[in-house]
């Protein structure tokens, strides 16, 4: 006979203290190898996304600094002309520049500085000494509203033989285009990786749903709604994805911190490394929850579509 003691759960009699059991458990899971592969894959994709975001942010920063550097500067070039004193022409140019409104400082670059500018292209060679180099006057624009580049250019052309004014417009435009190109490339890479994540999660969810057929069937028979099953699948993928993407983002952040703090490339003309700000690091770190959210939505929609197709009976 069933004793009263054994009948507690039905009668609501006094409850005994619980024994140790693994009472919290995941209903949906993937076995060893497949789970590890998926984890590593998500980690690598997360690393690629965060690196792309980091590079994109860095390019933007570098471009901003470069454009800022040259947007307030102009250069007057006085080329050597046979029979004309370059010194006199330079003096005339300086006179015009000093009378031009909006100009801050004017600096004539000496021969040594001119030669230094050519070194990255020509290297350490004596040929530089034999070249007929133009005189260069660096002009810093103090007030862009007052400064009239067109008028100055006309005056220089009319009064200074062999002179020309370079407002760095072409450079600015090319830098902006280059920056845009890099940004587009970075965005395209991110888009492709996110697309890859979506495709991988769709396949993984389908595999999990197929592998969990018996679990899903039993869950349905004990009264689980589709939403309950979708929630179990989505939570499984969310957990996996969050840990994997977080592990993927950490090396990326480390790389940028190392580059920003220890790798001094400031001497180089072209690679002007600027450390990322806290905000930039935050954006990189946010790629982890963002990818996890994409995973969550993809897994939910995929499991929803699979359950919708099944009659659930």
């Amino acid at each position, binding site marked *: 006979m*069933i004793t009263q003691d054994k*009948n507690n759960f039905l009668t609501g009699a006094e*409850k005994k203290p619980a024994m140790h059991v*693994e009472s919290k458990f995941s209903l949906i899971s993937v076995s060893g190898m497949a789970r590890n592969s998926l984890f590593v894959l998500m980690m690598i994709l997360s690393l690629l996304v965060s690196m792309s975001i980091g590079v994109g942010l860095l390019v933007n920063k570098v471009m901003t600094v470069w454009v800022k550097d040259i947007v307030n500067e102009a250069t007057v070039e006085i080329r050597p002309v046979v029979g004309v004193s370059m010194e006199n022409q330079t003096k005339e140019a300086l006179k015009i520049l000093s009378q031009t409104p909006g100009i801050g400082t004017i600096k004539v670059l000496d021969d040594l500085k001119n030669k230094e500018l050519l070194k990255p292209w020509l290297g350490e060679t004596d040929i530089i000494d034999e070249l007929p180099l133009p005189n260069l006057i660096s002009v810093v624009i103090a007030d862009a509203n007052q400064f009239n580049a067109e008028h100055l250019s006309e005056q220089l052309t009319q009064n200074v033989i062999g002179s020309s004014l370079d407002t760095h417009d072409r450079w600015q435009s090319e830098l902006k285009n280059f920056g845009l190109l890099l940004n587009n490339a970075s965005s395209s890479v991110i888009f492709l990786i996110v697309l890859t994540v979506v495709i991988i999660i769709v396949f993984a969810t389908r595999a999990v749903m197929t592998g969990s057929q*018996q679990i899903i069937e039993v869950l349905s*028979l*004990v*009264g689980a709604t*589709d939403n*309950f099953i979708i929630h179990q699948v989505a939570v499984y993928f969310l957990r996996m994805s969050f840990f994997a993407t977080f592990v993927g983002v950490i090396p990326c952040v480390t790389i940028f911190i190392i580059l920003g703090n220890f790798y001094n490339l400031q001497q180089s003309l072209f690679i002007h490394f600027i450390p990322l700000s806290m905000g930039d690091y935050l954006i990189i770190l946010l790629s982890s929850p963002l990818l996890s959210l994409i995973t969550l939505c993809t897994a939910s929609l995929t499991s929803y579509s699979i359950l919708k197709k099944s009659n659930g009976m």
Partner: protein
Amino acid sequence: MIRFENVSFSYKDNEVILKNLNFEINKGDFYFVTGQSGAGKSTLLRMLFMSLVATKGKVSIFEQDVAQLHKEDVAHLRRRIGIVFQDFRLLDNLSIFQNIALPLRVLGQRAEDYQVDVIELLEWVELGKHLNNYPPFLSGGEQQRAAIARAVVAQPDLLIADEPTGNVDPELAQRLLRLFIELNKLGTTVIIATHDISLMREFHVPRLTLQNGYLTEGGYF
């Protein structure tokens, strides 16, 4: 509670398994469903837990027309039904405790709330020492008891069992039957499919007999 009106069932393009069934089971009833192998007992049970829908006629469970129910409604009705399958359908990747707790988990209960109840139930079916073991490491009889425990853990309004004593010795079979009777006394409607004649002789409950797809309502033994 359960009403079958002119119900027939056939699989696609196959012969009719159940033919023109008419019966009613009220709340608190206890019924055996009997019949030879292939008579349609399992099909009838599957219709009772809404895994199959009648191809003809009307099936009402808890006063609701099954054919009119949406998937979500079926899920909610199933929460009021405990099912013991012939093949147990325990999940191998979950411990016995976790298997038993499954219906409570689906009901949204927290582990802290149901832990004690589940352990008590496991002790009741003498599986207390196996609560952290996994189904493949249990004998057929132990799995049977675990399946029964899972069916009754949420204290369902309706209990459906398909050959629940098929894998256990006669003594345990009687004990399990007494468990069903106890549940029935507490208000649970119990429907058991069995071809165990000795069990039916011992426990005097009404039976529904299936023969060639037709239902013959039997009397008491």
